[in-house]
């Protein structure tokens, strides 16, 4: 029998063939629909008579007003039914562990090392209760303290709180600190404006607005950089602060960032650095050197903790010493070998989350940072930037694509591309390319709304992905673009290999149609009467 070169059978002309992917479809009902009255996953044994006699009626200790009149309407299922249900749902998903997850730019979708999940799942952590006495939770307090020291070194700022539940919560905490600072100086009413840029994370504008500030947004200058002259026009005695991301979501690093900070300081405002895009600058630049007063990191981005479908997460908020008294309570303090939670902070902005945040994610992030070491963290940034600029060069070989703003310049860790030319030529839009890419098992995202870059596409390769991974992603997009030119209907009628087809968009904009609970679903879709309150 003739020998076959089995290692080359997945290749054509030296390039790997596109994946023949097909998504699973289980037609799985909502778990409430699977409920069978009386079915149980675990049968809890009856309390022994002796024990019952000794303890009495435990429910009698709960005030009657706090007791349910009827049991909660939870689904009743056997253990195997539950396992099967969630395994099926997991197969209908395209998660970070399945695809080359570089298509969700600005999210820093890096690999979450599994050993860190094991640490977080350890009973040593998961069995703790947040109300335990400090003396019994010295280990986790020490980890929180040590991780704060790491963040201080990375940012150059003086104190951190790990309480905020995610990046936006951390920005909100920072805005609260900014307000407390101006209030203490008697300027809270006068300083009612917060400045940001259109390519900073939208959470900056949103949090400032939520806190009651007027938001002033700067658009880029003619070269695509944050516009210093616009900032000059914006600052005044009404300026409370600037909240700014750098590099911005275009991947462009603001070369005049120190000038921005100085100008706002001169006007009496504070400067808060959104470090959501820190993955490309770890160990290279710091908030302190640019003279920022506050900053925040998303541990689910730069520090590799899972994104977890929108939470629970940690947004680490950092400040200079002068602002430390305003940090949320509690903070972890060290006293020799003893660690304790300090609640006695009269100037604090209060709580921005429950207890001390999400310690499991602090453990994951601490383990990751320790496994990297200082040199490793810098190497993370260097590889992330290298990956991104390799990807940029390969992507720009695809006809119809451009990288608007600061054209011809290198980018830091991500790029917001534009398919405007392709859309003009073919009528195929960016989202449609993304839906077709899903037919090859790849996730693809456009941009926050509203679109500032026309026909956007935001890719952020991080340090986690190999050259082969990046090549596969580019090859799929190049193939889809080729289809857009030669067989546009194939792209427009995609997906073909996924089981959920085009989703109607309009209901997303209509709260009247949202059914986010089973009860709302029964009411809005099933027409059930609303239960009395």
């Amino acid at each position, binding site marked *: 029998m003739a020998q076959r070169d089995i290692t080359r059978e997945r290749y054509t002309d030296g390039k790997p063939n596109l994946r023949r992917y097909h998504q699973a479809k289980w037609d799985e009902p909502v778990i409430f629909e699977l409920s069978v009255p009386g079915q149980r996953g675990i049968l809890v044994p009856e309390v022994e008579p002796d024990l019952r006699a000794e303890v009495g009626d435990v429910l009698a200790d709960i005030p009657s007003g706090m007791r349910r009149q009827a049991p909660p309407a939870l689904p009743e299922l056997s253990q195997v039914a539950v396992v099967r249900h969630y395994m099926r749902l997991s197969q209908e998903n395209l998660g970070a562990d399945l695809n080359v997850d570089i298509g969700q730019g600005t999210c820093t979708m890096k690999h979450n090392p599994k050993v860190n999940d094991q640490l977080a799942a350890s009973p040593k952590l998961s069995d703790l209760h947040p109300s335990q006495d400090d003396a019994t939770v010295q280990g986790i307090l020490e980890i929180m303290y040590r991780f704060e020291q790491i963040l201080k070194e990375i940012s150059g700022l003086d104190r951190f709180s790990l309480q905020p539940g995610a990046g936006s919560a951390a920005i909100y905490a920072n805005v609260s600190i900014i307000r407390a600072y101006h209030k203490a100086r008697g300027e809270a009413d006068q300083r009612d404006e917060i400045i940001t840029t259109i390519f900073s994370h939208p959470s900056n504008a949103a949090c400032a607005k939520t806190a009651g500030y007027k938001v002033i947004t700067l658009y880029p200058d003619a070269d695509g950089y944050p516009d210093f002259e616009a900032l000059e026009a914006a600052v005044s005695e009404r300026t409370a602060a600037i909240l700014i991301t750098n590099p911005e979501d275009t991947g462009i690093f603001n070369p005049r960032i120190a000038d921005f900070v100085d100008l706002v300081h001169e006007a009496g405002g504070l400067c808060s650095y959104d470090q959501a895009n820190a993955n490309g600058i770890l160990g290279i630049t710091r908030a302190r050197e640019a003279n920022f007063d506050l900053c925040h990191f998303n541990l689910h981005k730069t520090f590799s903790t899972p994104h977890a479908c929108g939470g629970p997460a940690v947004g680490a908020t950092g400040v200079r010493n002068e602002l430390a008294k305003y940090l949320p309570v509690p903070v972890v303090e060290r006293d020799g070998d003893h660690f304790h939670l300090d609640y006695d902070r009269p100037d604090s902005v209060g709580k921005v989350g429950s207890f001390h945040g999400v310690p499991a994610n602090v453990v994951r992030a601490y383990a990751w940072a320790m496994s990297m070491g200082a040199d490793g963290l810098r190497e993370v940034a260097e590889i992330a930037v290298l990956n991104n600029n390799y990807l940029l060069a390969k992507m720009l070989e695809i006809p119809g694509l451009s990288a608007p703003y600061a054209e011809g310049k290198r980018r830091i860790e991500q790029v917001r591309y534009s398919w405007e030319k392709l859309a003009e030529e073919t*009528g195929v839009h960016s989202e449609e390319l993304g839906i077709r890419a899903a037919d090859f098992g790849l996730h693809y995202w456009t941009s926050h*709304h509203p679109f500032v870059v026309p026909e956007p596409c935001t890719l952020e390769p991080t340090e986690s992905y190999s050259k082969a991974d990046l090549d596969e992603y580019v090859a799929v997009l190049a193939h889809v673009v080729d289809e857009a030119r030669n067989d546009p*209907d194939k792209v427009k009628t995609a997906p073909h290999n996924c089981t959920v087809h085009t989703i109607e968009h309009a209901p997303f904009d209509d709260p009247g149609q949202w059914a986010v609970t089973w009860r709302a679903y029964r009411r809005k879709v099933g027409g059930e009467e609303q239960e009395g309150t």
Partner: protein
Amino acid sequence: MAENTRKLGLIVNPVAGLGGRVGLKGSDGLHVQRKALALGAVPHAGDRAIDALDRLGRVADLEIVTWSGAMGEDAARARGFSPRVAGSSKSSESTADDTRAAAVEMRERGVDLLLFAGGDGTARDICEAVGEELPALGIPAGVKIHSAVYATNPLNAGELAALFLQGRVSALRSAEVMDIDEDAVRRGQISAHLHGYLKVPVRSALVQSLKAASGPGEEAAMAAIATAVTDSMEPDTLYLIGPGTTTRAILSRMGLDKTLIGVDAVENSRLLANDMNENQILASIEGRKAGRAKIVVTPVGGQGCIFGRGNQQFSPDVLSRVGRENVIVVSTQDKLNSLAGNSLWVDTGSRKADEMLSGHLRVITGYKEEAICRVAS
């Protein structure tokens, strides 16, 4: 007829664009069209319509209602459709009257969307005939395209029309119909005027990821802007409200009627005058102290112009008396974003006024939301 038949009205202005390649700055009027043809101009509006119709093949149960020959029938047949021909032009040379008559007939026949190929003159004719009474969308085929009712190219016009007829796009917005005086352009002057609005479909994203929650829509954005402006209105101060749908929302919020394409004046929550010309504006601000007369404008025409297109009543004289610090610019963020990195601009006809207005200006984009935008002259 099947119940879910979708009806598309199609009007092609066969002479649109004739004057362009032969350098005539436009094609309005029979004598210019004849001159263009004599200079060797080749009609191409029909071809542009054929390109757009390419996208409509996938719309199920589509019925095309159109006008005879070059006014739509030819294009539809060239794409393999069997259109219902509802009328024909009165003479061998089609005129603005034919466009208007066809548009009225389409409305009578209850078309779901009126798709037309032409330029600003065509849009103006359709606007005069049916206004905002039915959804309409332009296939760009003319020399002049200052109106915001046109897609960026025929393919995209066809695509948007198909999505609208399929029900995948349902939002409509009032888009400006602008036209310039061709004779003035031939004399070297540009003077674009706002003639009215057509209701055009707006394509938002087809799908959306969880991270990309879209805003509550243009109407809510305008209402937020209106609240920001009315909340900050000062007593005994004249507010001269320029044309546009964004500025109209300000008067709506005050319970007042706005001249959509004109300048209105309000003071102390009362409407003082409608549709003012330059002299009436000058008279209204005469003798007022600095800061007691303010101008509220929004970029008109989708290209970022804040003075000099569609609001020439705000003359250089008016602007210099009111002063830059009393100009309030309002715009939805979507409108600013659609400029794709280009600045706002002014072209008032006076270099001095243009220079006074240029530089960075605050633009109200929502309630407690402003943007700093460059203004070029």
